Protein backbone atom coordinates (compact mmCIF):
# COMPACT_ATOMS: atom_id res chain seq x y z
CA UNK A 1 0.00 0.00 0.00
CA UNK A 2 2.75 2.42 0.98
CA UNK A 3 4.57 1.75 -2.29
CA UNK A 4 1.49 2.47 -4.36
CA UNK A 5 0.92 5.76 -2.56
CA UNK A 6 4.43 6.98 -3.27
CA UNK A 7 4.23 6.08 -6.97
CA UNK A 8 0.92 7.90 -7.23
CA UNK A 9 2.43 10.98 -5.66
CA UNK A 10 5.48 10.86 -7.89
CA UNK A 11 3.69 10.21 -11.16
CA UNK A 12 2.54 13.83 -11.81
CA UNK A 13 5.99 15.14 -10.90
CA UNK A 14 7.56 13.12 -13.69
CA UNK A 15 5.38 14.65 -16.41
CA UNK A 16 6.89 17.68 -18.05
CA UNK A 17 5.68 19.67 -21.01
CA UNK A 18 8.64 20.97 -23.02
CA UNK A 19 6.53 22.63 -25.69
CA UNK A 20 4.64 24.75 -23.18
CA UNK A 21 7.86 25.42 -21.25
CA UNK A 22 9.29 26.80 -24.47
CA UNK A 23 6.29 29.04 -25.04
CA UNK A 24 6.53 30.35 -21.50
CA UNK A 25 10.28 30.92 -21.84
CA UNK A 26 9.80 32.85 -25.08
CA UNK A 27 7.02 34.93 -23.52
CA UNK A 28 9.12 35.67 -20.43
CA UNK A 29 12.06 36.52 -22.66
CA UNK A 30 10.01 39.09 -24.52
CA UNK A 31 8.06 40.59 -21.63
CA UNK A 32 10.64 40.36 -18.86
CA UNK A 33 9.32 41.36 -15.44
CA UNK A 34 5.84 41.88 -16.79
CA UNK A 35 5.21 38.14 -16.43
CA UNK A 36 4.01 38.05 -12.85
CA UNK A 37 3.15 34.40 -12.45
CA UNK A 38 2.56 31.32 -14.56
CA UNK A 39 1.26 27.80 -14.35
CA UNK A 40 1.65 24.85 -16.70
CA UNK A 41 -0.64 21.87 -16.56
CA UNK A 42 1.24 19.37 -18.69
CA UNK A 43 -0.67 18.42 -21.80
CA UNK A 44 -3.53 20.78 -20.91
CA UNK A 45 -2.86 24.48 -20.88
CA UNK A 46 -0.58 27.32 -19.96
CA UNK A 47 -1.71 30.14 -17.68
CA UNK A 48 0.26 33.38 -17.61
CA UNK A 49 -0.50 36.39 -15.46
CA UNK A 50 1.00 39.59 -16.78
CA UNK A 51 1.22 43.06 -15.28
CA UNK A 52 -1.70 45.38 -15.96
CA UNK A 53 0.29 47.77 -18.15
CA UNK A 54 1.68 44.88 -20.23
CA UNK A 55 -1.74 43.47 -21.16
CA UNK A 56 -1.78 44.80 -24.73
CA UNK A 57 1.89 44.07 -25.24
CA UNK A 58 1.43 40.45 -24.12
CA UNK A 59 -1.09 39.92 -26.90
CA UNK A 60 1.26 41.55 -29.40
CA UNK A 61 4.10 39.27 -28.38
CA UNK A 62 1.94 36.16 -28.41
CA UNK A 63 0.60 36.90 -31.88
CA UNK A 64 3.58 38.38 -33.67
CA UNK A 65 6.54 36.56 -32.13
CA UNK A 66 5.10 33.25 -30.94
CA UNK A 67 2.55 32.66 -33.70
CA UNK A 68 -0.53 32.59 -31.48
CA UNK A 69 -2.59 34.29 -34.15
CA UNK A 70 -5.96 32.75 -33.28
CA UNK A 71 -7.97 34.80 -30.80
CA UNK A 72 -10.20 32.56 -28.75
CA UNK A 73 -12.01 34.70 -26.19
CA UNK A 74 -11.64 37.60 -23.80
CA UNK A 75 -13.62 38.15 -20.63
CA UNK A 76 -13.28 39.10 -16.98
CA UNK A 77 -13.79 37.62 -13.53
CA UNK A 78 -15.27 39.30 -10.48
CA UNK A 79 -13.63 37.67 -7.46
CA UNK A 80 -15.95 39.31 -4.93
CA UNK A 81 -17.97 36.68 -3.05
CA UNK A 82 -21.67 37.06 -3.74
CA UNK A 83 -23.20 39.49 -1.23
CA UNK A 84 -26.50 37.66 -1.56
CA UNK A 85 -25.31 34.35 -0.20
CA UNK A 86 -26.02 31.12 -1.92
CA UNK A 87 -29.34 31.58 -3.66
CA UNK A 88 -30.04 27.87 -3.89
CA UNK A 89 -30.02 27.52 -0.12
CA UNK A 90 -32.56 29.95 1.25
CA UNK A 91 -31.32 29.42 4.80
CA UNK A 92 -28.25 31.55 4.09
CA UNK A 93 -29.90 34.12 1.86
CA UNK A 94 -29.13 37.62 2.99
CA UNK A 95 -31.60 40.50 3.11
CA UNK A 96 -31.49 43.36 0.66
CA UNK A 97 -29.43 45.51 0.49
CA UNK A 98 -26.65 43.21 1.59
CA UNK A 99 -23.45 44.00 3.40
CA UNK A 100 -20.44 43.91 1.11
CA UNK A 101 -18.36 40.86 1.83
CA UNK A 102 -14.64 40.78 2.44
CA UNK A 103 -12.90 39.52 -0.64
CA UNK A 104 -9.56 38.88 1.08
CA UNK A 105 -10.62 35.36 1.99
CA UNK A 106 -11.13 34.42 -1.64
CA UNK A 107 -8.53 32.42 -3.53
CA UNK A 108 -8.07 34.16 -6.88
CA UNK A 109 -7.54 30.98 -8.92
CA UNK A 110 -4.59 29.91 -11.06
CA UNK A 111 -1.60 32.27 -11.05
CA UNK A 112 -3.11 34.37 -8.25
CA UNK A 113 -4.28 37.95 -8.29
CA UNK A 114 -4.45 41.03 -6.09
CA UNK A 115 -7.52 42.88 -7.33
CA UNK A 116 -11.26 42.30 -7.41
CA UNK A 117 -11.46 42.19 -11.20
CA UNK A 118 -9.22 40.25 -13.51
CA UNK A 119 -9.36 40.16 -17.27
CA UNK A 120 -8.49 36.95 -19.03
CA UNK A 121 -8.02 36.11 -22.66
CA UNK A 122 -7.21 32.94 -24.51
CA UNK A 123 -5.17 32.74 -27.70
CA UNK A 124 -4.24 29.67 -29.71
CA UNK A 125 -1.59 28.69 -32.21
CA UNK A 126 -3.14 27.40 -35.44
CA UNK A 127 -1.99 23.94 -36.45
CA UNK A 128 -1.07 22.97 -32.90
CA UNK A 129 -2.96 22.24 -29.70
CA UNK A 130 -1.14 25.05 -27.89
CA UNK A 131 -3.05 27.80 -26.15
CA UNK A 132 -2.11 30.52 -23.72
CA UNK A 133 -4.55 31.80 -21.15
CA UNK A 134 -3.43 35.31 -20.32
CA UNK A 135 -4.66 37.07 -17.21
CA UNK A 136 -4.11 40.50 -15.74
CA UNK A 137 -5.29 42.39 -12.68
CA UNK A 138 -7.50 45.44 -13.14
CA UNK A 139 -6.83 48.11 -10.49
CA UNK A 140 -9.72 48.43 -8.04
CA UNK A 141 -9.77 52.23 -8.05
CA UNK A 142 -9.38 52.61 -11.82
CA UNK A 143 -11.04 49.94 -13.95
CA UNK A 144 -8.98 50.47 -17.07
CA UNK A 145 -6.74 48.22 -19.08
CA UNK A 146 -5.26 48.19 -22.58
CA UNK A 147 -7.08 46.91 -25.61
CA UNK A 148 -6.34 43.83 -27.67
CA UNK A 149 -8.05 45.12 -30.79
CA UNK A 150 -4.80 46.35 -32.34
CA UNK A 151 -3.60 42.74 -32.33
CA UNK A 152 -6.84 40.83 -32.73
CA UNK A 153 -9.64 42.69 -34.50
CA UNK A 154 -12.08 40.06 -33.25
CA UNK A 155 -11.46 41.10 -29.66
CA UNK A 156 -13.54 44.24 -30.19
CA UNK A 157 -16.89 42.60 -29.48
CA UNK A 158 -15.49 40.66 -26.53
CA UNK A 159 -14.25 43.90 -25.04
CA UNK A 160 -17.62 45.52 -25.62
CA UNK A 161 -19.29 42.67 -23.78
CA UNK A 162 -16.79 42.78 -20.93
CA UNK A 163 -17.28 46.54 -20.74
CA UNK A 164 -21.06 46.35 -20.42
CA UNK A 165 -21.07 43.33 -18.11
CA UNK A 166 -18.29 44.37 -15.73
CA UNK A 167 -17.73 48.07 -16.37
CA UNK A 168 -14.10 47.63 -17.35
CA UNK A 169 -12.82 50.16 -19.88
CA UNK A 170 -10.43 49.03 -22.58
CA UNK A 171 -8.25 51.97 -23.53
CA UNK A 172 -7.76 52.18 -27.27
CA UNK A 173 -11.08 50.53 -28.10
CA UNK A 174 -13.13 53.50 -29.22
CA UNK A 175 -16.38 51.61 -29.71
CA UNK A 176 -17.52 50.38 -26.30
CA UNK A 177 -21.25 50.70 -26.88
CA UNK A 178 -23.53 48.07 -25.36
CA UNK A 179 -23.49 44.88 -27.36
CA UNK A 180 -26.10 42.60 -25.78
CA UNK A 181 -27.85 44.90 -23.35
CA UNK A 182 -30.37 47.57 -24.35
CA UNK A 183 -28.55 50.84 -24.83
CA UNK A 184 -30.33 52.46 -21.87
CA UNK A 185 -29.51 49.61 -19.48
CA UNK A 186 -27.95 50.79 -16.22
CA UNK A 187 -25.52 48.75 -14.17
CA UNK A 188 -23.18 45.89 -14.89
CA UNK A 189 -25.08 42.61 -14.55
CA UNK A 190 -22.13 40.23 -14.19
CA UNK A 191 -20.77 42.05 -11.18
CA UNK A 192 -21.42 40.06 -8.03
CA UNK A 193 -23.23 42.89 -6.27
CA UNK A 194 -25.73 43.35 -9.14
CA UNK A 195 -29.13 42.47 -7.63
CA UNK A 196 -31.45 40.07 -9.40
CA UNK A 197 -34.61 41.91 -8.44
CA UNK A 198 -36.92 38.96 -9.00
CA UNK A 199 -35.06 37.14 -6.27
CA UNK A 200 -35.24 40.12 -3.95
CA UNK A 201 -39.02 40.23 -4.33
CA UNK A 202 -39.55 36.48 -4.21
CA UNK A 203 -36.88 34.45 -2.41
CA UNK A 204 -35.69 31.28 -4.02
CA UNK A 205 -37.95 28.54 -2.63
CA UNK A 206 -35.12 26.02 -2.23
CA UNK A 207 -35.84 22.47 -3.24
CA UNK A 208 -39.40 22.29 -1.91
CA UNK A 209 -40.84 22.10 -5.41
CA UNK A 210 -38.93 18.97 -6.33
CA UNK A 211 -41.00 15.82 -6.14
CA UNK A 212 -39.38 12.75 -4.61
CA UNK A 213 -38.33 10.01 -6.99
CA UNK A 214 -40.70 7.04 -7.17
CA UNK A 215 -39.96 4.71 -4.28
CA UNK A 216 -37.68 7.22 -2.60
CA UNK A 217 -40.10 8.79 -0.19
CA UNK A 218 -43.58 7.36 -0.71
CA UNK A 219 -44.28 6.43 2.91
CA UNK A 220 -46.27 9.63 3.49
CA UNK A 221 -48.34 9.05 0.35
CA UNK A 222 -49.18 5.48 1.21
CA UNK A 223 -50.23 6.50 4.73
CA UNK A 224 -52.52 9.16 3.31
CA UNK A 225 -54.03 6.65 0.91
CA UNK A 226 -54.57 4.26 3.80
CA UNK A 227 -56.38 6.94 5.78
CA UNK A 228 -58.67 7.70 2.82
CA UNK A 229 -59.54 4.05 2.42
Amino acid at each position, binding site marked *: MADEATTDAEAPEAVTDERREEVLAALTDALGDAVVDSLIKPGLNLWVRVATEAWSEAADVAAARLGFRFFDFLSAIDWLPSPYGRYEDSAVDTPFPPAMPDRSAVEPGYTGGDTRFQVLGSVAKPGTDLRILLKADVPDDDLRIGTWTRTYAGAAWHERETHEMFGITFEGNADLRHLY*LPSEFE*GHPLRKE*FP*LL*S*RVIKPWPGIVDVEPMPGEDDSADSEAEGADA
Partner: protein
Amino acid sequence: MGLVESGKMPKPLTKLLNLSRKYSIWAYQWGLACCAIEMGAAFASPRYDVMRLGVIPFPASPRQADLVIISGTVTDKILPAIRRLYEQMPDPKYVISMGSCANCGGPYWDSYSVTKGVDQVIPVDVYVPGCPPRPEALIEGIALLQERIQNEDMAARWRGAQDVEPIVVG
Protein backbone atom coordinates in the same frame (compact mmCIF):
# COMPACT_ATOMS: atom_id res chain seq x y z
CA MET B 1 -67.29 47.30 -42.86
CA GLY B 2 -69.99 49.76 -41.92
CA LEU B 3 -72.35 46.96 -41.03
CA VAL B 4 -69.88 45.38 -38.64
CA GLU B 5 -69.11 48.64 -36.89
CA SER B 6 -72.75 49.47 -36.40
CA GLY B 7 -73.36 46.04 -34.92
CA LYS B 8 -76.22 45.38 -37.27
CA MET B 9 -74.70 42.44 -39.06
CA PRO B 10 -77.18 39.69 -39.75
CA LYS B 11 -76.28 36.61 -37.70
CA PRO B 12 -75.78 34.27 -40.67
CA LEU B 13 -73.42 36.77 -42.27
CA THR B 14 -71.38 36.99 -39.07
CA LYS B 15 -71.18 33.22 -38.98
CA LEU B 16 -70.00 33.12 -42.57
CA LEU B 17 -67.44 35.83 -41.98
CA ASN B 18 -66.15 34.10 -38.87
CA LEU B 19 -65.96 30.78 -40.68
CA SER B 20 -63.84 32.27 -43.42
CA ARG B 21 -61.60 34.06 -40.92
CA LYS B 22 -61.19 30.89 -38.92
CA TYR B 23 -59.94 28.88 -41.88
CA SER B 24 -57.63 31.51 -43.34
CA ILE B 25 -55.43 32.59 -40.46
CA TRP B 26 -52.18 34.06 -41.66
CA ALA B 27 -49.79 33.27 -38.87
CA TYR B 28 -46.64 35.30 -38.39
CA GLN B 29 -43.81 33.31 -36.85
CA TRP B 30 -41.87 35.15 -34.20
CA GLY B 31 -39.31 32.52 -33.21
CA LEU B 32 -36.96 33.69 -30.49
CA ALA B 33 -35.47 30.56 -28.97
CA CYS B 34 -35.77 26.78 -28.83
CA CYS B 35 -39.59 26.91 -29.00
CA ALA B 36 -39.16 28.08 -32.58
CA ILE B 37 -37.92 24.60 -33.49
CA GLU B 38 -41.17 23.09 -32.23
CA MET B 39 -43.09 25.80 -34.03
CA GLY B 40 -41.20 24.96 -37.20
CA ALA B 41 -42.12 21.32 -36.75
CA ALA B 42 -45.77 22.22 -36.29
CA PHE B 43 -45.88 24.63 -39.23
CA ALA B 44 -43.51 23.34 -41.85
CA SER B 45 -43.23 19.59 -41.38
CA PRO B 46 -45.50 17.11 -43.14
CA ARG B 47 -46.02 15.21 -39.89
CA TYR B 48 -48.00 18.02 -38.25
CA ASP B 49 -48.83 20.24 -41.21
CA VAL B 50 -50.74 23.19 -39.82
CA MET B 51 -52.00 24.11 -43.28
CA ARG B 52 -54.60 21.36 -43.05
CA LEU B 53 -56.28 23.59 -40.43
CA GLY B 54 -56.29 26.52 -42.82
CA VAL B 55 -53.39 28.31 -41.18
CA ILE B 56 -50.95 29.86 -43.62
CA PRO B 57 -47.69 30.28 -41.76
CA PHE B 58 -45.73 32.38 -44.25
CA PRO B 59 -47.02 35.95 -44.54
CA ALA B 60 -44.50 38.31 -46.06
CA SER B 61 -44.86 40.86 -43.28
CA PRO B 62 -46.78 41.50 -40.07
CA ARG B 63 -49.04 43.79 -42.07
CA GLN B 64 -50.54 40.73 -43.72
CA ALA B 65 -50.81 38.64 -40.56
CA ASP B 66 -53.86 37.79 -38.45
CA LEU B 67 -51.98 35.85 -35.82
CA VAL B 68 -48.51 36.07 -34.33
CA ILE B 69 -46.89 33.27 -32.39
CA ILE B 70 -44.36 34.57 -29.88
CA SER B 71 -42.30 31.47 -29.34
CA GLY B 72 -39.24 31.68 -27.17
CA THR B 73 -37.40 33.88 -24.71
CA VAL B 74 -38.50 37.51 -24.86
CA THR B 75 -35.72 39.82 -23.73
CA ASP B 76 -36.09 43.47 -22.79
CA LYS B 77 -34.03 44.33 -25.83
CA ILE B 78 -36.45 42.79 -28.33
CA LEU B 79 -39.53 44.10 -26.54
CA PRO B 80 -39.84 47.33 -28.60
CA ALA B 81 -39.68 45.26 -31.79
CA ILE B 82 -42.48 43.00 -30.56
CA ARG B 83 -44.63 45.98 -29.62
CA ARG B 84 -44.06 47.47 -33.06
CA LEU B 85 -44.79 44.17 -34.76
CA TYR B 86 -48.10 43.96 -32.94
CA GLU B 87 -49.01 47.52 -33.82
CA GLN B 88 -48.31 46.86 -37.49
CA MET B 89 -50.74 43.97 -37.64
CA PRO B 90 -54.21 44.83 -38.92
CA ASP B 91 -57.24 44.21 -36.73
CA PRO B 92 -58.63 41.69 -35.91
CA LYS B 93 -55.36 40.29 -34.62
CA TYR B 94 -54.53 37.45 -32.29
CA VAL B 95 -51.46 36.48 -30.26
CA ILE B 96 -50.31 33.06 -29.15
CA SER B 97 -47.66 33.02 -26.44
CA MET B 98 -45.79 29.76 -26.81
CA GLY B 99 -43.60 28.27 -24.12
CA SER B 100 -42.74 29.09 -20.52
CA CYS B 101 -40.36 31.91 -21.41
CA ALA B 102 -42.90 33.91 -23.41
CA ASN B 103 -45.62 33.12 -20.84
CA CYS B 104 -43.84 34.19 -17.66
CA GLY B 105 -40.05 34.18 -18.06
CA GLY B 106 -39.82 30.47 -17.42
CA PRO B 107 -36.40 29.27 -16.30
CA TYR B 108 -35.15 32.85 -16.64
CA TRP B 109 -37.54 34.14 -13.99
CA ASP B 110 -34.67 35.88 -12.15
CA SER B 111 -32.71 37.14 -15.16
CA TYR B 112 -31.65 40.75 -15.58
CA SER B 113 -32.40 40.71 -19.30
CA VAL B 114 -35.50 38.54 -19.81
CA THR B 115 -39.02 39.95 -19.82
CA LYS B 116 -41.25 38.05 -17.41
CA GLY B 117 -44.04 37.39 -19.84
CA VAL B 118 -44.79 38.96 -23.21
CA ASP B 119 -48.31 39.81 -21.94
CA GLN B 120 -46.76 42.83 -20.25
CA VAL B 121 -46.66 44.63 -23.60
CA ILE B 122 -49.17 42.93 -25.87
CA PRO B 123 -52.47 41.20 -25.09
CA VAL B 124 -52.23 37.43 -25.38
CA ASP B 125 -55.14 35.30 -26.58
CA VAL B 126 -53.73 31.82 -26.08
CA TYR B 127 -51.06 30.62 -23.70
CA VAL B 128 -49.34 27.37 -24.66
CA PRO B 129 -47.38 26.11 -21.63
CA GLY B 130 -44.38 23.83 -21.89
CA CYS B 131 -40.63 24.02 -22.07
CA PRO B 132 -40.85 23.71 -24.97
CA PRO B 133 -44.41 22.63 -25.82
CA ARG B 134 -44.76 19.80 -28.27
CA PRO B 135 -46.08 20.72 -31.74
CA GLU B 136 -49.38 19.05 -30.79
CA ALA B 137 -49.78 21.59 -27.98
CA LEU B 138 -49.31 24.51 -30.35
CA ILE B 139 -51.77 22.99 -32.80
CA GLU B 140 -54.27 22.58 -29.98
CA GLY B 141 -53.76 26.23 -29.15
CA ILE B 142 -54.51 27.14 -32.75
CA ALA B 143 -57.59 24.90 -32.77
CA LEU B 144 -58.89 26.54 -29.59
CA LEU B 145 -58.27 29.96 -31.12
CA GLN B 146 -60.22 28.92 -34.22
CA GLU B 147 -63.07 27.83 -31.99
CA ARG B 148 -63.07 31.25 -30.36
CA ILE B 149 -62.97 33.04 -33.71
CA GLN B 150 -65.93 30.97 -34.88
CA ASN B 151 -68.07 32.14 -31.96
CA GLU B 152 -66.79 35.69 -31.86
CA ASP B 153 -69.14 38.65 -31.92
CA MET B 154 -67.37 40.89 -34.40
CA ALA B 155 -69.39 43.97 -33.57
CA ALA B 156 -68.46 43.71 -29.91
CA ARG B 157 -64.83 43.21 -30.82
CA TRP B 158 -64.94 46.27 -33.05
CA ARG B 159 -66.33 48.39 -30.22
CA GLY B 160 -63.66 47.00 -27.91
CA ALA B 161 -66.43 45.87 -25.61
CA GLN B 162 -65.39 42.28 -25.72
CA ASP B 163 -63.85 41.14 -22.46
CA VAL B 164 -62.71 37.57 -22.75
CA GLU B 165 -60.39 35.49 -20.67
CA PRO B 166 -57.31 34.22 -22.47
CA ILE B 167 -57.20 30.55 -23.38
CA VAL B 168 -54.70 28.33 -21.60
CA VAL B 169 -53.92 25.09 -23.39
CA GLY B 170 -53.89 21.90 -21.34
